[in-house]
């Protein structure tokens, strides 16, 4: 059987947070929330893990730094030592102060651009990709919870429905779960 999903719609971020708290304490697992703007404090309620983008940034920065070191070591010291203003040019250490700015620039360039690109890739929101919000009004004034039945083994669909109805919900819809992308 295909996975079924329940979409519960709310009209206010505070109501959404309170309802989410209620549902989670009732044992419901909320897979995702769609909202017109970032709702502060919703992540810990529905149990979203903290982003790992920082680790990615660190690794990208390190990549940029190493590339810069390899680059200027080969280009400016090994392959063709360049005499600029009489600076020592036969060893990396003696000439290192001159290369600090470029090391810094490469680190920042790689970390910043890499982070932006990986963020877009991971979220599948590169320009031109189809939108995956189930409900177009979440880009306007509605807040929607996505509750997949496959992630709520302990509860039946009707139980979840009744639990949602206890909150100040506006609209409930159950349908087959379609992976948009």
């Amino acid at each position, binding site marked *: 059987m295909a996975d079924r999903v329940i979409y519960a719609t709310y009209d206010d971020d505070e109501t959404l947070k309170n309802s989410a708290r209620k549902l989670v304490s009732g044992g419901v697992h909320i897979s995702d929330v769609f909202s017109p703007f970032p709702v502060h404090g919703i992540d810990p309620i529905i149990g979203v893990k903290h982003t790992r983008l*920082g680790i990615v940034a660190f690794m990208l920065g390190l990549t940029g730094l190493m590339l810069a070191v390899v680059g200027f070591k080969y280009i400016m010291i090994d392959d063709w030592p360049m005499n600029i*203003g009489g600076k020592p040019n036969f060893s990396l250490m003696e000439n290192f102060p001159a290369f600090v*700015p470029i090391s810094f620039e490469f680190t920042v360039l790689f970390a910043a651009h890499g982070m932006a690109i990986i963020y877009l890739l991971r979220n599948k929101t590169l320009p031109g990709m189809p939108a995956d919000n189930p409900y177009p009004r979440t880009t306007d004034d509605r807040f929607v919870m996505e509750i997949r039945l496959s992630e709520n083994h302990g509860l039946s669909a009707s139980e979840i429905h009744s639990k949602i109805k206890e909150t100040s919900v506006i609209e409930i819809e159950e349908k087959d779960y379609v992976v948009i992308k």
Partner: protein
Amino acid sequence: MEFQISSKAKKTIFGAIAVGLISVIIGVVVHIDDEQFKTRILSNLLIDGFYFFAIALGALFFLALQYATETGWSVAIKRVVEGVASYVYVGIAVLLALFAFLTLTKGGYTEVDGHHLGHIYSWMDPQIVEHDTIIANKAPFLTKPFFWVVTALYFAVYILFYRGFRKRSLQEDVEGGTKIHYKNYVKGALFLVLFGYFSSTSSWHWLMSIDAHWFSTLFGWYVFGGMWCTSMTTIMLVLLYLKKHGYLQQVNDSHIHDVGKWIFATSFLWSYLFFSQFMLYWYANIPEEVIYFDFRIENYKFTYWAMFMVNFIVPMVVLMSREAKRNTGILAVVCLIILLGHWTDVYMLITPGTMGEFGCIGFIEVGFLLLFAGVFTFFILNTLTKAPLMPKNHPYLDESKHHEI
């Protein structure tokens, strides 16, 4: 009112002061016959006098910055910032006494075979200036009357603004409303403008003029970078201490995280300015300019580079992750390392210029550091006892209590 200095804290502080005093006395007994003795004592007074004054001044700057930007999150830690800033009184008193002594003794020289040597401020000595056209040409700036007029102005402004901020902060607890908030906003912005000029020009007068022939336009910012970093570090240590003893319950991990970010950022600011200054002189390689760095690298190689590496790499590597900025143990250790590192930075700003190649860190240096640190800590904690640790009625207080990042 709610916070009391515990008897254990008092014992530790007075213990540190006593150990410092004994250490200074041992140093004095051992070194009293040295030719550099007088210079060494005066240098130490300037190092520790300036170092701790700068911490307080940085906190005052941070307070003004929070007011001028109408920042919400920092309201809960406001009293701690005020407490650290309150040391400006003692800092100013120490510096005033030292400057007065140096002015009266023509820069604090020692006479050796009829020569005047070991000045703190050689430009205060007419015998030196007479034969030194470089200093003579800096006349209106490097003269005693000008020095005193601007120094008095700086100190007056710092005290005036500190008193104003503190008074309005306590007044707000009683009155509430937004009138005081907007007044603080205006005064904070005004202080930032004045401080922008004063932080540079005062460091030229008080520190850069030790090496009277040399100058750097980045010097003021460099000193300011270190000042800001040590202030944030001190604020963090006081916060950790108070939280450990059960005060400031409403200061949560997010506040600590944010102060940690400031430490991280200001350490970078300082390192960036250190390197910017160094690289420009290294690249230009003009003898009369580069001598400043040459001298330090030749005579204080280890201290100089170790100081830079510690102040740059330790905060960068250790405080990079989110978890580290929320971990009391890691923060406390890093903060102490940074404070010692930046003390060494101030040491390196002053000692090579005054003591030449004879500078070293011994009983006298450690003793004075402990002595000043004890007085500094006691003064800060004493200010904290005088008002409730959590402000009331600040317009952003509620926002700060719910700070979450």
